[in-house]
């Protein structure tokens, strides 16, 4: 590596824009990954986060246009993600079908449904013009979520730009990391969720309604994935076919890499978000590093494989993860 290249990378690393972008990239990953943690802690493997994010992203835009309000768009995106999750829940919990197969089905149906509706509702031109506030916003435009600068704090050097000039959903995500941790490890319901994920038979014997707990966790996971999707689409102010481009799977990877814990998943999302931010950054710079930018993007996947193989501390899923539970079967 030449000195020029090295110093180019070096200056990039001290660029506050890069770190601000890291947090932005990490946000949709972390929101979905937190949902994944909740779902898998109860024993339901959720590989359908990609699909739930997609419907969240589409319906956020759709309702943002209808109600001329970004916040309603976000809420409707969450609702759409939750409804999509109910399909997974019904198949995987109620019908006790293979959870991976159900996840594949939901992902494919979501990809098809959003592509179909995009074409049906907006034709070949794509979603309408985006805008932030009424003067620029006319009837039928996509109301976009503006960034919110935290008073005073945003003026701090470097840190201010990185942490306090962000989308409101970024702040929500940061709060949720802590809340989900408390929820899973410090509340009765959280304990029940973990019990169901480790040993559903024992949990059932102790009087916990296994099916109900799993319905709740899968739906919560869908709502959080929907929020992640809404963040994606309403930050750029448009929806395009398959716009999540694998983020649901990176979130899944982050959840595993973070060993099924909220803080671990968040850390992994920051790492993967950094990779993505660096990837975008490298694409925009000219020089020898640019051509390798695509390879940098493979890191989340490779790191997850390494983690799963136990080369950097073993990643062990909840004991009953992926197993359907039949209350009527003899244990």
């Amino acid at each position, binding site marked *: 590596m030449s000195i020029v290249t090295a110093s180019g990378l070096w200056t990039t690393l001290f660029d506050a824009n890069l770190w601000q972008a890291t947090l932005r990239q990490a946000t949709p990953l972390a929101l979905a990954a937190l949902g994944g943690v909740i779902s898998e802690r109860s024993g339901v493997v959720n590989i359908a986060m990609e699909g739930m994010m997609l419907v969240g992203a589409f319906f956020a835009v759709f309702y943002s246009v209808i109600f001329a309000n970004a916040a309603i768009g976000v809420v409707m995106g969450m609702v759409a993600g939750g409804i999509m999750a109910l399909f997974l829940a019904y198949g995987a919990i109620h019908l006790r079908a293979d959870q991976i197969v159900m996840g594949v089905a939901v992902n494919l*149906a979501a990809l098809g449904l959003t592509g*179909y509706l*995009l074409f049906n509702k907006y034709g070949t031109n794509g979603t309408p013009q985006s805008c932030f506030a009424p003067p620029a916003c006319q009837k039928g435009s996509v109301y976009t979520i503006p960034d919110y600068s935290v008073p005073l704090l945003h003026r701090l050097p470097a840190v201010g730009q990185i942490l306090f000039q962000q989308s409101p959903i970024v702040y929500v995500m940061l709060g949720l990391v802590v809340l989900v941790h408390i929820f899973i490890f410090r509340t009765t319901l959280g304990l029940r969720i973990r019990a169901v994920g480790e040993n559903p038979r024992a949990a059932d014997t102790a009087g916990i309604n296994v099916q109900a707990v799993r319905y709740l966790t899968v739906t919560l996971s869908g709502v959080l994935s929907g929020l992640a999707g809404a963040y994606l689409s309403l930050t750029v102010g448009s929806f395009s076919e398959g716009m999540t481009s694998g983020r649901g799977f990176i979130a899944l990877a982050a959840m595993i890499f973070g060993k099924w814990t909220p803080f671990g998943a968040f850390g992994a999302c920051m790492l993967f978000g950094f990779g993505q931010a660096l990837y975008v950054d490298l694409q925009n710079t*000219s020089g020898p590093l640019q051509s390798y930018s695509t*390879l940098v993007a493979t890191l989340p996947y490779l790191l997850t494989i390494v983690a799963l*193989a136990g080369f950097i501390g073993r990643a062990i899923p909840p004991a009953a993860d992926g197993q359907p539970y039949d209350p009527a079967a003899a244990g």
Partner: protein
Amino acid sequence: MGLAEETSLERNFVWQWASGAAVPIVSVILAVLVGAAVVLAVGENPLNAYWQLLRGSFGSWYYFTETVIAAIPLMLAGFAVAFAFRGGLFNIGAEGQLLAGAVASAYVGYKFHVPGIVLVPIAVLAGCLAGALWAGIGGVLKAWRGAHEVITTMMLNYTAILVTSYLVEPGPTGHPGPMEQTIQIGNPETPPMNATLPIIVPNSIVLNNRVHAGLLIALGAGVLVWFLLWRTTLGYKVRAVGLNPRAAAYAGINVKWTVAVTLFISGAFAGLAGMVNLYGLAPYQLTNSFSSGYGFNAIAVALLGRNSVVGVIAAAILFGSLQQGGTIMQANAGTSLHLVEVVQGLIIFFVGADAVVRYLAARGMVKLPGPQRQKAAA
């Protein structure tokens, strides 16, 4: 019950076959109906859409050949997923293995200057080997490190997609990717493939048809899958581990080795799918959008085909017809091709949760003879 007792052996056989096909067939019908409801809900005409889809896939000999062409990679990738299922493994990474096979065979295709009769077999081997190695990573990690194959093969999918993208895509400055074969169509600097698969249906039968020898390769692979699974010791081991790894180990089968080999072989078929599509279809060039999700649809094909060779072939033709007919549907009925994905997703849902079908059977709405398997995939 009484009915089953008085059936002759021959009827029993038909009965059994029907029970195997009942869930997939009912699932497809249910998926088509729910798909129609979606079309109706957004104010389009489902009858017209489906009519155009049917016409576009089976309405003429030419359309039918296009359906078969679309089915070829689905068959091969479907065999890959089905073979792994037989061994109790969920290979969700056929997409990545398919790309690995395409990349390796593309390299062979423009680097090796030998006659086609020599080159094509080498390309077949290269494609199989690349796919097998890509899947083998997941197999080895599953066998000796306990890493779940669903996650590893899924992660390897995206790795393959990105690496292929790196190899073929010119960067923003126009600097071409490392694989010269893929610079651009019509560019004289792009070295051509030194061999391709011939068209096997004469022009006099179906004008301008594109049915390539990949069909024969796919059908041959089907025979090979059947032979491997049901006529070799290896196949016996694969199925034994798939049914019950503990019992297989007790019977003296090396389970770890079998798991690794199962995924290795599975990946070979997916890699072959990549090679066949690259060598069979003009412009014989590896591009970024080379695979339109064949590897993911292969999961559906294997599930729908109940992991049997004949079932996979039938399911691949169905999915091929959806793909081909969907294009015509979009052009003629104005209904987005994405409807096909919705229907495919629903098919997977209903096949995977065959409880829905069993529910209907319990209420006498569908006849289901024989005990039904609990799950489509172990």
